[in-house]
């Protein structure tokens, strides 16, 4: 697995690199935003670990540049900015996950694995069902050719359902896709997202399969 680590603190970068390499990844290190942008031109990285507090320019500008050219390489933000609003800004800018310093290395590896799992097997062509389309590269959902505003979590939920069109997707699979959760948390949040998606896309798109989960398309009950 090829990773790009963008981190200006050499001591932390050294330790993370050693840890990640022990887990079988090969890690390139960029110490500032300029080097990171240069490394991300025509790159072959599976994921980017991005620090936000870089000298000169914010890590968010690196992320913006990457997403600006519809590059969907997973980005995991590592930052000392623990304000929740910073974090929401990071996720809104297109980060896949956000981890606050100081963190346990194990937590970083777990989050990284989750992010990679979610990105693998992702189909890049535009997915469509009825009058609804979802463009994974542009992170865009439309209904009858009009863009629909969806949150990051709603997007993940809808994307998995669209990818698995015609098949039932369980709540656990959806939770896994949305949070990379390992099942410690039992929550009704998927139901909330599905409810929101129905409100935005119309009732006919997502079908509830009682006792199992949800489905888009396939046999009508």
């Amino acid at each position, binding site marked *: 697995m090829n990773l790009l680590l963008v981190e200006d603190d050499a001591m932390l970068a050294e330790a993370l690199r050693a840890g990640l390499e022990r887990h079988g990844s090969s890690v390139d290190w960029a110490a500032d935003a300029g080097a990171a942008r240069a490394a991300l031109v025509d790159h072959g990285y599976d994921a980017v670990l991005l620090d936000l507090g870089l000298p000169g320019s914010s890590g968010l500008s690196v992320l913006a540049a990457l997403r600006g050219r519809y590059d969907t390489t997973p980005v995991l933000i590592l930052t000392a900015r*623990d*304000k*929740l*609003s910073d*974090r*929401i800004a990071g996720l809104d800018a297109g980060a896949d996950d956000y981890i*606050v310093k*100081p963190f*346990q290395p*194990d*937590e970083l590896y*777990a989050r990284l694995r989750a992010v990679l799992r979610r990105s693998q097997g992702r189909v890049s062509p535009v997915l469509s069902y009825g009058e609804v389309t979802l463009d994974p590269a542009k992170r865009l959902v439309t209904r009858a050719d009009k863009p629909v505003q969806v*949150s990051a*979590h709603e997007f993940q939920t809808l994307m998995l359902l669209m990818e698995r069109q015609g098949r039932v997707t369980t709540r656990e699979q959806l939770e896994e896709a949305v*949070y990379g*959760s*390992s099942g*410690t*948390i*039992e*929550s*009704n*949040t998927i139901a*909330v997202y599905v409810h929101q998606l129905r409100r935005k896309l119309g009732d006919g798109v997502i079908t509830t399969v009682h006792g199992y989960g949800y489905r888009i398309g396939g046999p009508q009950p």
Partner: protein
Amino acid sequence: MTRDWMAHHRRFHMRHSLRWRLTKALLLCVVLAFLCWKGYQSWQLTRERTGFWDASLREIAGQILESMPDNLAVLAQTAQTPRPRTGRDDQKMSFQIWAGGRNVVYSPAAPAAPMKPDFADGYATREIGGKTWRVYSLADPRRGIIVQVGRTQDMMAAEFSGWVRVGLIAAAQIFVLFGLVAWLVIGRSLRQVTALRKTLLARQPLDLTPLPLAPIPTELQPLVEAFNHQLGRVDEALQHERRFIADAAHELRTPLAVLTAHADLALRANTAEEKDAALQRLNAGVQRSARLSEQLLDLARLDSAAAGERVPVDLSELLVLLVRDIETLARERRQRITLNAEPAMVSGDVDQLGILLRNLLDNAVRYAGEGGTIAVSCGPRAGAPGVVLQVADDGPGVPAAERERIFDRFFRASNGNGNGHDRGSGIGLSLVARAARSHGARIEVGDGIGGRGLSVTVYFPSVANNAPDT
């Protein structure tokens, strides 16, 4: 650039100067009063003067008529024309004597045409040769003589302008006097303010004693009072900050001493097992320090935050993010978290709400115990006006007698994790209380899941009316 700015600054300064404004207002009043008075005077004068002049015209006309010989109409046929004798003002006055339709005798400045062409007795004001004349015509039908007397009104105008000049000079003197008095009185009153400014400038940076009120003009006292009030608040914030630094120093030193001790043990360990054990304790100590510094930062942030910007926030979205963060910690303890989140709009500050949720969750996970369950929910609830957030666990809980105090800073429940390795800092719940208070939310503490453990319920006011108590 600089000069422009200075010019602008000076203009700004002038426009806002009390002295300048008052002087301008006084000048305006004096000028208006002068104009009114002058107008009234002119009107009155014109009336009086017209009466006076008219009388003199009539008198002179009468005199001329009397001094004319009875046979003037006959004499007029000859070349001899008697010089009429008139009284005063004769050179400023013109006359014509008409007999048999001819102007037989006239003064040198008199116009050739009849001054009053209708020859009717009486006064008239007429335009003759571009000037305004006041004329009077008097006829003696017995002798067939008509006398017309007239005078231009330049005279009157000259007299009026004399009056105007005197009035202006008087007004200017009054204005100068007024302005001077206003200037001096204001300057004197503001001297106290200047003195106050000097006192302030000479102060030590953190000298927050209130300013004296006594010598300041009454009108400015509210300003000084407001300033003193603000000084008081700054003083309070400063005291808070000082307490915080003292507390933080104390709270940080102990864990750092623990780290040093375990690092030292690890270095000196004789066997790999001893080294590992020491390193594990070191790692635990690092985590505890990390959490503590996070909480101290949160504390500083909440202490210093003015009432942050209030925006509509969906608590359920924040909960989803933060529940995930706590997941690793929960998994280490083989705990189960159930999240029942319904859309829950509150009006608040995202960062402060984040501090509230994070510390509430962190506290629950730490005290629920190995293999425990943590139930998290948010949403509307019957009987409560706004939205309700609840975090409950099935751990050992807190004795009822101590429940009131768990939100006090540095308070630790007597039955909390007693092994010392994961001792709480006593800060987390005090942060929750502070953030809740600044959002106008009410906190209730009760039994946790199935009558065990602890539950903390936060009642947020409905979005429309949550004025925070500061």
